[in-house]
């Protein structure tokens, strides 16, 4: 009975921000800090004393009994983790935003947070879809108004591309809703009804495939997966840095949440060829995005591809985790969810640092940078930390996820696992290469003097790096929530 108040507070704050002019920056920061703190305290309070799965804090508001619409909220171990992640990411994005007196900007950032939380916390498919769609609108405006030189086409591409993906989700929801009525004579949109295996098994096979394909198209566009990814590098590159942080940290969880939060409850009914398709797409994405990232000269674009590549692990984990059985399957699935969380933190951290690099040095391409360690050692060291986390160095968050996925999926993938390892080698090589060219080596004298991070900037960034380290060393902070969530469904 707490989350709806926090959510209502966030909605109110986002609307107020539009109207308070020059105080908007301060207000947005304070209110998002309050939301983040509230969520973290709430999770510690509700989830640590032995979480065994299921939704906690259910809230339901009847909207229309005739059509079976309820506005219902609730969190489980997995979504709670993503909500906490999202609130931290938005806080980081607001921290590095330097637009003074621009209420529209801050209001839109908070609206994005509202949309993300809404879709994560909704426990009925109607509002899940509503928030899933609506979160695109503020991001569209953020890229469009504040973006780079190609913002016109890129913002539209972002919206239409992901919108076309999501309308297939809507069709699947309709099909579920319609079949539920013909089966039980009840109109409902609740996740717990529509996403139950007993109901799902009554649907004819063809329409089961139709429903799963619809969901998958929507989720894979968002993830993104290999052939349907082209919106991502463009949007990440054209968006202003704080928005890239939100895109990479908070919105990238949407696809992963779709797989693990929406589709996973149906796992006994997902045909094996779907899972193998997901695994294949995941492996192709990993290799393709790593190779593409290797040939980028722009660090922001390179990190965008790196981010897309590491989401490949998520679909591999989902496919192989369901195919696998016993503890291996659990480790695999939990690893996949852990990857969503770790990836969000790491990529948001990297993009925040890239933002400082861009504003301090004036460049985010390899041609412009070079040896900036000499002038700004703190920035360079932190950035190196981020790169190491991103390539999966043991002791940092990324490693835990990748290790569990590879360990858990080995039984299913067999020799295919070498392809995954191969892509990890490519990933490691271009990360190191990026560090070498941008941070170390001879200093690019054209840059002149570069300001290093100020104390407050450095400590905020250090805090993020420490949290990546802590989660990497003590994954037990996060794992019980994920295994508890899985246990609640199995």
């Amino acid at each position, binding site marked *: 009975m707490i989350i709806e108040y926090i959510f209502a507070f966030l909605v109110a704050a986002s609307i107020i921000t539009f109207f308070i002019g020059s105080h908007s920056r301060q207000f947005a920061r304070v209110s998002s800090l309050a939301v983040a703190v509230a969520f973290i305290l709430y999770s510690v309070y509700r989830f640590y004393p032995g979480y065994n799965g299921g939704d906690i804090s259910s809230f339901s508001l009847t909207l*229309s009994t005739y059509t079976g619409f309820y506005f219902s909220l609730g969190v489980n171990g997995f979504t709670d983790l993503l909500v906490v992640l999202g609130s931290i990411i938005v806080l980081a994005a607001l921290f590095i935003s330097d637009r003074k007196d621009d209420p529209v900007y801050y209001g839109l950032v908070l609206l994005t947070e509202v949309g993300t939380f809404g879709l994560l916390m909704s426990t009925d498919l109607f509002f899940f879809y509503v928030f899933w769609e609506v979160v695109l609108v503020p991001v569209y405006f953020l890229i*469009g108004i504040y973006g780079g030189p190609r913002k016109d086409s890129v913002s*539209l591409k972002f919206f*239409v591309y992901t919108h076309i993906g999501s309308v297939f989700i809507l069709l699947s929801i309709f099909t579920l809703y319609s079949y539920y009525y013909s089966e039980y004579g009840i109109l409902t949109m609740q996740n717990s009804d529509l996403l139950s295996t007993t109901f799902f098994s009554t649907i004819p096979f063809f329409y089961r495939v139709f429903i799963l394909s619809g969901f998958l198209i929507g989720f894979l566009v968002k993830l993104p997966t290999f052939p349907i990814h082209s919106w991502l590098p463009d949007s990440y590159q054209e968006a202003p840095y704080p928005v890239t942080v939100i895109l990479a940290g908070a919105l990238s969880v949407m696809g992963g949440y779709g797989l693990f939060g929406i589709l996973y409850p149906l796992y006994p009914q997902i045909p094996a060829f779907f899972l193998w398709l997901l695994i294949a797409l995941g492996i192709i994405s990993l290799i393709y995005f790593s190779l593409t990232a290797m040939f980028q000269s722009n660090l922001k674009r390179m990190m965008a591809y790196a981010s897309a590549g590491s989401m490949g692990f998520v679909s591999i984990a989902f496919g192989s985790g369901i195919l696998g059985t016993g503890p291996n399957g659990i480790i695999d699935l939990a690893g996949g969810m852990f990857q969503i969380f770790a990836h969000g933190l790491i990529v948001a951290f990297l993009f925040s640092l890239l933002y400082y690099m861009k504003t301090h040095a004036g460049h985010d391409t390899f041609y412009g940078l070079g040896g900036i360690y000499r002038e700004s050692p703190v920035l360079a060291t932190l950035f190196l930390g981020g790169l190491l986390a991103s390539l999966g160095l043991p002791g940092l968050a990324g490693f835990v996820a990748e290790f569990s996925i590879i360990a858990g999926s080995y039984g299913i993938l067999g020799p295919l696992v070498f392809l995954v390892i191969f892509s990890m080698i490519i990933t490691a090589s271009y990360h190191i290469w990026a560090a070498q060219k941008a941070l170390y080596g001879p200093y690019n004298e054209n840059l002149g003097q570069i300001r290093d991070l100020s104390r407050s900037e450095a400590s905020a960034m250090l805090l993020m790096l420490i949290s990546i380290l802590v989660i990497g060393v003590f994954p037990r902070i996060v794992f019980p929530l994920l295994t508890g969530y899985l246990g609640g469904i199995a």
Partner: protein
Amino acid sequence: MISESISTVTGVQSLQYLYPLIVLGIAGFIILGLGLATSSKKAYAGIAFGALAIAAILILLIPQNASFVLSNSFAYSQFGAYFAILFVISSLFIVLPSLKNISAKGDIFYALLLFVTTGMIVAAFTMNLIVLFISFEAVSIGTYVLAAFHKTRRTLEASTKYFFTGVVSTSFIIFGLAFFYQAAGTFELTSALAVVSKPALLIALLFLTIGFGFKVAIFPMHQWAIDTYYGAENSVSAFLSTGSKLVAFMIMLKIFIVGFSTMGEDVFLLFTLLAIFTMTYGNISALSTTNVKKLFAYSSIAQAGYLILVFSITSYALWSGQNYGLIAVNAVAAAMLYSLVYIFMKGGAFVFLNTLDKENPEFSDISGFARKSPALALSLSIILLALAGIPFTGGFTAKFYMFLYLVDAKLWWLAIIAILNSAISVFYYFRVIMYMYWKPDSGVSLSGSRIASATVIVSAIVVVALFFYFPLFSLLHGFAQGLFGVTG
């Protein structure tokens, strides 16, 4: 289906069904008479506004049970009352915004508007084809004149084009009615249950579709619409695209769902083809236009395509012998919701053009508009988001239900076509938003018309409110039974 018996009202009792019509008619003549004494536009508009408001209240005061009045030429049902209210709203919508551009002969304009509304209400309350035809003609003839107001060469051309195509469509309707009578042996839609001659009924189906399709601007009959919407005065375009289109749509609901209830297969094939072509044509053409008003005109055609999906749903349910009662009533309720939202979306969009100090603005003319008037830019954005079907707007709810019942009737493939069309439409709606928010300023200034601005803002608020008013659909579900209830 509804089982409640339909009462027959006779004698003085029938009068209360006519009060709204009487009020509107008398007010129309008062305005005409007043035209001799004064030329104050505000007085005419005031009377028209008041009369329409009173008519709306009088419609609400009619006893709610379905009944036949005046020897069956009048058939009251909640379905009809709902549409009557919609028509009054669509007229109310343009009374005040039209003040800006109607310079001469205001008395004729407002009197005609009231007469047209009278015709619309009659159409709402009848199930007899002859009465439907006469009331439809009253609407058509009135709108021919309305389209010619605001004398420029362009409006004249618009109205001429509208008039000639309209007359052709009328002749199609008359032919269609004749064949319908030959086939069914009656002009009463409710009793057209036994088919005498199937070929004649097929011809009637085709001719009536062509005739009414003109007014709804369905694909091959749409050419007049672009030029007329483009050429007519903005508020008249709003009216043509909302009130006049919805009256034809409502008549189609009556004819093709009740009157052709024996021909599920043919209605399905015809309307599914038309719906696919109409929405695809509207959306594809809108992609390449750079004129805001033309864009609204094309989008109006695309929206007509979504609207007539209702015929695909009901006729397919009939043809395939599914749970016809529930699916058809739900689909009609979805169409009713769509019509309501549509008035505010399209009306607001066209009236928005009155807030600019330029006739027929191109995209470049509205560029940077958000910096001049944030409130108006936000309102238009909400309306465009609604037209594109993005959540937290009534436009989303309307499309949501329409597509939901497509899936419910097991028309998945059609739902995919419709939903992809709706996704394509995002391209052109969002281009307008793009110009308003992040393109450099154009030299075009605001017209400063407060009435037009207020109308746009109110429409945006209503469009959002319609999303949040969830009980509306179950209410409409009850009203929709009126359409079937009268069949007994």
